[in-house]
């Protein structure tokens, strides 16, 4: 998550100090490593490629917040449809398939989505059996089969679910692995071969047990980090193999970072945290603390700035006032606890009290409609600074992508 705190630079820091030689003279900086920032960068990259006169593009990213936790289903805040270049670039970046679909969740329900990342199993509409992989810790194939079978009826699906006869997690040491570690283990060719062999045997056995065709195999979120093992197995076995949509401890952050690697390699990317910015007539200065380099600090100057640092959900920026309400001394003035600041403070639009807004008045499950998700910042200078994605109140990936498309269109209108 990037931290973006409103803090004016001290004058002595200068205008265009450049600690690592990154050339910012051509002037576009995108801050934020989530999907909104990545899409802005991707779209600008394409735009740049089509022009004779290039603009410099720098992508400053610390950590990716909410995007890295995305479990692979794609929703939209509204009925948003990606088309043309944006759709292609998004698919290329993420490997996503954009179609209305049903997927299975690890709590044993059907879930509707407008798209999915490649590891997620598209539940077929045809009648048939889905085998649910047994033997994975925390993934109770028997219970999930029952639960998904029940929920299938709710959505009018004729699918049946049954646990595999044997444990598909066969190695003892994997008993204590979960999440990203287990998924990473399945990146290994040797492990993949073992799984493929087990699946072949299991399918052979399953087909002797019933005339109802096997139409898919469902796994927990373990099918690789860098490898699209779901696609590999699907190709080898000739039937869909994929994952459920998992929960909090899944491998999603690792996958997201792997997904971003090609883009990071193609553009000028600075791994760091933006800790402040200042708008001057001549340029915009960004203070960046680099990660992994003993916190080296630098100042970058640019002409145009895109902030894709996530909202409250993404944790993308810090909040003015008491950093920790429980420990704050009695404040001298009324304020809103979650008041966000982005050069010009943007309040949460709730009345403050002597002690600040009570958090329970903001957050789920106290508040219906979930005000936490609707916090958004406004640009202090719409001709030079754009706010995109969750920071702009967009909650879903597809909405962030649409917002990125809008921002890039505006930004490139007068290059």
């Amino acid at each position: 998550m990037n931290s973006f705190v409103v803090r004016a630079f001290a004058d002595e820091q200068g205008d265009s100090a450049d600690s690592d030689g990154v050339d910012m003279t051509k002037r576009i900086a995108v801050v934020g490593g989530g999907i909104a920032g990545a899409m802005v960068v991707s779209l600008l990259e394409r735009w740049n490629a089509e022009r004779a006169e290039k603009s410099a593009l720098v992508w400053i990213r610390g950590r990716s917040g909410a995007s890295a936790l995305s479990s692979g289903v794609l929703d939209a805040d509204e009925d948003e449809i990606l088309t043309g270049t944006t759709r292609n670039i998004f698919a290329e970046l993420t490997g996503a398939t954009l179609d209305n679909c049903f997927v299975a969740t690890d709590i044993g329900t059907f879930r509707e989505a407008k798209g999915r990342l490649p590891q997620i199993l598209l539940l077929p509409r045809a009648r048939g059996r889905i085998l649910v992989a047994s033997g994975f810790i925390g993934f109770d194939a028997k219970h999930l089969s029952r639960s998904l079978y029940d929920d299938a009826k709710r959505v009018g699906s004729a699918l049946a679910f049954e646990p595999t006869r044997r444990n598909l997690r066969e190695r003892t040491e994997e008993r204590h692995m979960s999440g990203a570690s287990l998924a990473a283990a399945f990146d290994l060719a040797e492990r993949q071969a073992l799984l493929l062999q087990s699946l072949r045997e299991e399918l052979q056995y399953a087909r002797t047990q019933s005339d109802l065709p096997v139409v898919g195999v469902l796994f927990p979120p373990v099918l690789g980090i860098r490898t699209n093992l779901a696609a590999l197995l699907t190709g080898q076995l000739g039937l869909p193999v994929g994952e459920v949509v998992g929960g909090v401890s899944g491998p999603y952050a690792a996958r997201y970072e792997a997904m971003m690697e090609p883009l990071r390699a193609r553009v000028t990317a600075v791994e760091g945290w933006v800790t402040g910015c200042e708008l001057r007539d001549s340029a915009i200065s960004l203070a960046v603390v680099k990660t992994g380099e003993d916190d080296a600090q630098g100042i970058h100057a640019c002409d145009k700035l895109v902030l894709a640092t996530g909202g409250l959900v993404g944790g993308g920026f810090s909040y003015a006032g008491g950093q920790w309400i429980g420990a704050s001394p009695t404040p001298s003035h009324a304020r809103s606890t979650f008041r966000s600041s982005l050069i010009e403070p943007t309040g949460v639009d709730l009345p403050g009290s002597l002690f600040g807004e009570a958090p329970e008045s903001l957050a789920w499950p106290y508040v219906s409609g979930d005000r936490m998700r609707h916090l958004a910042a406004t640009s202090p200078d719409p001709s030079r600074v754009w706010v995109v994605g969750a920071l702009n109140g967009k909650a879903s990936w597809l909405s962030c992508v649409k917002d990125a498309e809008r921002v890039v269109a505006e930004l490139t209108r007068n290059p």
Partner: protein
Amino acid sequence: MFESVYSEPPGPLSMRFEAPPADVPTVDVVVIGGGVNGTGVARDLTLRGLRVVLFERNDLAFGASGNSSGMIHGGVRYLSKNPSVTRDSCKDSGFIQAIAPHLLFRIPFIMPVRKGPFASVMYELIDAYFQAYDIFQPLKRGKPHARLSADECRRLEPGLVGDFVGGITFDEWGVDGSRLCVLNAVDAKERGASIHVHTTVEAITREGDGGHYIVRARDRITGQVQRVRAKSVVNSTGAWGPITAAIGGIHTPKMRLRPGKGIHVAFDRRLSNYAIMSQAIDGRDIFIEPWQNMSVIGTTDDDYYGDLDNVLPTSEEVRYLVQGIARVFPAVREARIVTTWTGVRPTLYTYGKNEDALSREHEIVDHRESGAPGVFSMIGGKLASYRLFAQEQSDVVMSYVGQNEKCVTHVKPLPGGDVVPSAMETADAYGITPTAAQRLTYRHGSRALRILDTLGDQPDDAEIVCPCEPVMACEVKHAVREEFARTVDDVSRRTRLGLGTCGGMRCAFRCAQIVADETDVSPEQGRAMAMTFLERQTKMRIPAMGTPQARQEALLIEQLRGAGVRR
């Protein structure tokens, strides 16, 4: 001819006679309330040979018992006014240590004395006070107090700040109040009692001949209604006491309580190995204590008039406590709060006193005067004196039913309290992590081995369901099979599942799957259980969260949404 048990108008209800229904099982005593007093009485009476049924409207330890400061203290505050109470408290603390040695842990306290007017005099007085307390300390295996210089205080706890005259140390014993209730209930069950949680008493009526009571109770999960005939009824429902009495048509001023809400704030780790006393802004004594694997600040004390089934903390209460502790131990400002808990003390009624000045004593109300002989209410009391209170109540019941067996609850170990296994040896023997073994043996004593033995047939039950605590699948199953758990919330109360940094986001649904399978309810009902638990935990956590926690909360919620969880 029956007369109203309480004739003072305008009593809206009166105890009614009822014709004896057929096929109603008969027991000696119905205990209403699954807190520490109710389960303590159920155990005591069962040990004395009576047939007992216990009904609990919510879960065992749902109220004050499971939301206390978690201490079996020696009653130091009563020393000046009533030293016999202190002596009895210390003595009973010793008994509880003997019957549940696995469940108690020593909490050494530091009480720094700030410099100020008369501080030196105050320091001497406190020292003298604790010298008197030392007389009783051996009864509870307590160490004598020590008088420390300011430097010695800081050497013990470098995080202390402030200008001190010096400090005093003393020690008390910590306990998991929920486990204490559960163990009492389990022991009662194993000796023949029948325990019903999530079962609310809807009516208490007298049979036509006046000799017995018919207690009608409804299971709040299944809706099933049952009736039990009993010679005696014990109302041990804490702050719900007057409501329960009213269900029986009993309206008497003797049942008046002054319920006091107390909240505690829990941090994700032990911030100090010492409990540290401080004063809140209004001069009240508050403390931060190392408690199990976390630190806990306690407590507030405010009159409470709200819904007893839904007591929630507020951010104001959290700030009040944190501010008071930060004055001497500012590290709490940087620490991470993971949850709060909130209970309502069933304090005895007094008008005109501040909450802190109210008596923590207990009383047994005999409703004979209200026309309900054999019906008793336990009011007031505290966790530390539960066993003694239960003994006194059981003596009264035994006398009423004409029997004279003596109390043995002070010598008979609670389940698992016979031998405390070594956590390290247990870890080695069963191939589980030392942390999991340590937590399991803490909660279950020797019965931890019984739980782990089930791994022989079900090795996958070594699955860590809750990584924060940690809690294994075999323990979840044990909670359901042996400890009356019926929901995720119940499992959490018994195991502390879902109370760590992730707030149950990682384990609630997995736990719900196991509970649903074990209790034979549908997966959908299981998911509903998980959501109820998560909502409850979020409500307990949000008033205490700071900005980083707010971010994480939002991220976790977002991921639950991603997984398709809807409310």
